[in-house]
């Protein structure tokens, strides 16, 4: 792949990222498609989100209370677990599971439509593939990932509660009172703004990779792999950058 190629692909990607959300303005709306995708992405991901969050919450609580109890500070477990879940680990872990489940699905579905000339048929019949295939997926991902993240955070906190109370023998009401303490605007805002961006990134990257799939089953494999790999990298990097920006914007000292 030469430089010119790379630049033109990047350009295509930016165009897609830009145009996809604009697709909601103007007919046709593809409401049925959007609802179907929301169901697939949201309801369909509930189980994995539940499992991932529960165990992350428990592991984190276990680790932190072990460390803190050595220092004699284990009553602060709730605070630390809550903060790390809500601001960092929850959004990132759930976005990563979402990329694995939904991102790969998007790429392989659109990719096989490209390879089977189904997208060409749409174009011949005057249907804009960007609007029909990409916009509903981007919209659904942007709406569903935050919802999943909130659910996941709650499950994680429950998992943390279970460990601190039943394994680490702390006071349950103190755990919750600490969680209530950290439930302020800054923390919730930082935690909830992230999944909007992650959902947008995952869906745009996956749709783009699907649309640019070439070369049969192997090409599809490559496209799907790069969709998940790129999404993963972008989630981690943009999380760091967003954390940095949010700290600045919300005026919190590091």
């Amino acid at each position: 792949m030469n430089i010119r190629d790379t630049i033109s692909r990047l350009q295509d990607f930016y165009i897609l990222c830009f145009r996809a959300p604009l697709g909601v303005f103007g007919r046709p709306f593809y409401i049925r498609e959007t609802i179907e995708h929301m169901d697939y992405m949201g309801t369909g991901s509930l189980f994995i989100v539940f499992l991932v969050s529960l165990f992350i919450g428990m592991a984190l609580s276990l680790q932190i209370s072990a460390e803190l109890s050595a220092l004699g500070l284990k009553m602060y477990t709730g605070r630390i677990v809550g903060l790390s879940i809500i601001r960092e680990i929850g959004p990132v872990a759930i976005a990563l599971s979402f990329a694995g489940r939904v991102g790969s699905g998007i790429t392989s579905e659109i990719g096989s439509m490209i390879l089977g000339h189904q997208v060409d048929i749409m174009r011949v019949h005057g249907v804009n593939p960007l609007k029909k295939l990409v916009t509903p997926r981007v919209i659904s991902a942007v709406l569903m990932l935050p919802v999943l993240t909130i659910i996941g955070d709650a499950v994680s906190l429950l998992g943390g509660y279970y460990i601190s109370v039943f394994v680490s023998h702390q006071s349950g009401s103190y755990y919750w009172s600490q969680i209530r303490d950290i439930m302020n605007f800054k923390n919730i805002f930082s935690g909830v703004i992230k999944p909007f961006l992650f959902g947008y990134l995952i869906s745009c990257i996956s749709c783009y990779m699907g649309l640019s799939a070439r070369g049969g089953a192997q090409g599809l494999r490559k496209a799907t792999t790069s969709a998940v790999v790129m999404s993963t990298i972008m989630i981690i990097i943009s999380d760091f950058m967003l954390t940095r920006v949010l700290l600045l914007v919300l005026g919190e000292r590091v």
Partner: protein
Amino acid sequence: MIELRDVTLAYGDHVVLDRVSFKAEFHERVAILGSSGEGKTTILRLILGLLRPDSGKILIDGQDITEHSESQLRDFRMNFSIVFQEGALFDSMNVRENVAFCMREYTNYSEDEIEKRVRSLLNRLGIEDAIYLMPEELSGGMQRRVAIARSLAGCEPKMMLYDEPTSGLDPLTADNICKLIKELSKGDPPGRAGFIIVTHKVTDASKVAERFMYLRNGNIIFDGDINALKNTSDTELRSFISELYAA
């Protein structure tokens, strides 16, 4: 009217079409013949604006479409409907939804209305029983017929483009499809919807088309009617159409 003017297209170093030129009216019944890999499918994709040529012009009703954007191309594509070589059915939708694709996009028909129209189309193609099957449950010939039904539903093309509609089918099914293609383009010019059929099956082409072109090494080396085709002096073309002499 379609016109290709000195159209050249290459994939990397491999020149597929080398200054191809021809004109065809929408009501004509054209067959483009040629061996496998000569660029027949490529020509259809160029006409639809799915591919852009490296050089040359493609004029639809006198307008050059080679520089048009995707949204400008929409109006030109509405003149055509295509049946791809592989059928290209939407594999996650059943036959009914495949055929109803355009109706759902462009009309507000009720479910009953859609069902009725799809059924009558499928009935015409003799596959009404398959209405609720998925594409993977269909045989090759049935898929081809569903693809034809879909290309007809909900749009009124001025010209149909068929890419190898009969290859890979048994003689009887192939014959049925030829009859169908012919029936779909009945009526008198200039109002009739013509077609371009792209194929290497000479006998099938001779059953439906009135004008024949032969593509070789990126050029159209023959363009004429059936008699001219049979009387050609080109030895390679003669052997390509040898089936015709037998019949």
